[in-house]
């Protein structure tokens, strides 16, 4: 059994729908249903569930606000969705019979690619084409290093999440084969902790990259003003 292989469940025309895609759809439906039900009757005097939602959304907003104060409201949906989706997607592997979509490199690569695109999207949107000047800062000689850095950090983002989640699943399978049913609960706890940590790391790194892109031009301009 190769857990890294893509398992195609069915086809829609020419598209081969894999198990990761179907699981992702399931996660989307669960998240959407939960959000639609809980946000239907929001009130100024919140109940316990609304308090939980507001605490989660408030924490995400504060984190984004700290990293990119000027674009917090625009960046927040993307970063928040990354955290919530990765949390749900990582934790769904705990359910017997289901596999976390993040154990597929295609999924983590897609998310990393979205982070890569988002970094430049928000940078260009905030500063225009002047955003690209930071690639030749402090010297045009640094351009190749900047490009390599962009590519490698995106690849690292994808591979880190994929590697950790895939190895966790693999280790769990190996331990299950070796130790039988003696250690499922510790492995389950390790799975939950790892899912939380990896979701947090991926989302936080994405936030730092985007925040860096948004704030880079501002910092460069402040440095120039200080030199003047």
């Amino acid at each position, binding site marked *: 059994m190769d857990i*890294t*292989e*893509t398992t195609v469940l069915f086809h829609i025309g020419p*598209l*081969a*729908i*894999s198990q*990761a*895609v179907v699981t*992702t*759809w399931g996660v*989307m439906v669960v*998240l*959407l249903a939960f*959000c*639609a039900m809980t*946000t239907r009757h*929001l*009130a*100024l005097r*919140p109940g316990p569930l*609304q308090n939980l*939602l*507001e605490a989660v*959304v*408030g924490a995400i*907003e504060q984190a984004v606000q700290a990293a990119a104060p000027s674009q917090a409201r625009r960046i*927040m*949906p*993307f970063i*928040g*969705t990354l955290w*919530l*989706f990765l949390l749900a997607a990582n934790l769904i592997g705990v359910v017997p019979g289901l596999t976390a*979509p993040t154990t*597929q*490199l*295609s*999924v983590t*690569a*897609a*998310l990393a*690619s*979205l982070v890569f695109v988002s970094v430049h999207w928000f940078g260009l949107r905030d500063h225009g084409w002047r955003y690209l000047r930071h690639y030749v800062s402090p010297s045009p000689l640094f351009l190749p290093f900047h490009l390599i850095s962009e590519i490698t950090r995106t690849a690292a983002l994808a591979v880190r999440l994929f590697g950790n989640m*895939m190895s966790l699943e693999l280790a769990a399978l190996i331990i299950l084969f070796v130790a039988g049913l003696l250690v499922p609960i510790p492995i389950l706890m390790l799975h939950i902790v790892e899912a939380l940590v990896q979701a947090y790391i991926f989302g936080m790194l994405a936030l730092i990259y985007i925040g860096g892109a948004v704030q880079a031009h501002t910092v460069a301009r402040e440095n120039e003003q200080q030199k003047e």
Partner: protein
Amino acid sequence: MNLDWTTYSLEIINFLILVWLLHRFLYKPVLDVMERRRSAVEQNLAEAQAKRTQADQLKVQYENRLQEWNKEKEQARNQLQGEIETERKQRMRALESALKEEQNKRAVLEQRQRDELQQHIERVAIGHAARFASRLLSRVASPELEARLLDMLITDLSSLPQEQRSALAQAAGELATPVRVLTAHTLTEAQQERVTQALNELLGTSPHYEFNTDYQLIAGVRIQVGARLIQANVNEELRLFQEAAQHDA
């Protein structure tokens, strides 16, 4: 480990759709309600601040008004005290005046009472003196005294004014009863003759005479001619003396 481009593409699309859906159904409503609550709290704080400012202004206003009230109260109290003092002085003056008037009345009344008491005492003293004199004269009265009084009467009758003589003569002319002659002691015939003769001469006629005695006269004689009396006795003299003394008192 391979990269499935279909999964890769579908995951990108799925994630973008999920971003939109969560933005639509989670972030926006929750952030909106948080913003509404924040606005409501800020509005409440602003209202509270405004009310506090208004309360401070009202407090200052009320304090100023209270100070003004205190000043007005103090002024009113001073004015009232002044009016009370004026009224008190007026009433004191009126009271002093009334008191002085009452004292004057009292003094007059006391003086009157003293005068009345003195008059009463004088009258009592005169009464006592008259009784004393009457008792004393009663003890010293005698036929000799009566004879002297009779002599004095006969002498006085001869020197009566003409008017009284005429009045007595007229009374004697109208007599229906005898002329009564009262004496304290019984007259002798000679004395009765002298009296009869003097009266006949005075009256110009000779009426019938009736001689009686009355010891209350002490000494002397009383002659009744009709409605007129001719008296020369101690009792009558004492009575006249007592009346004159009481009149003078």
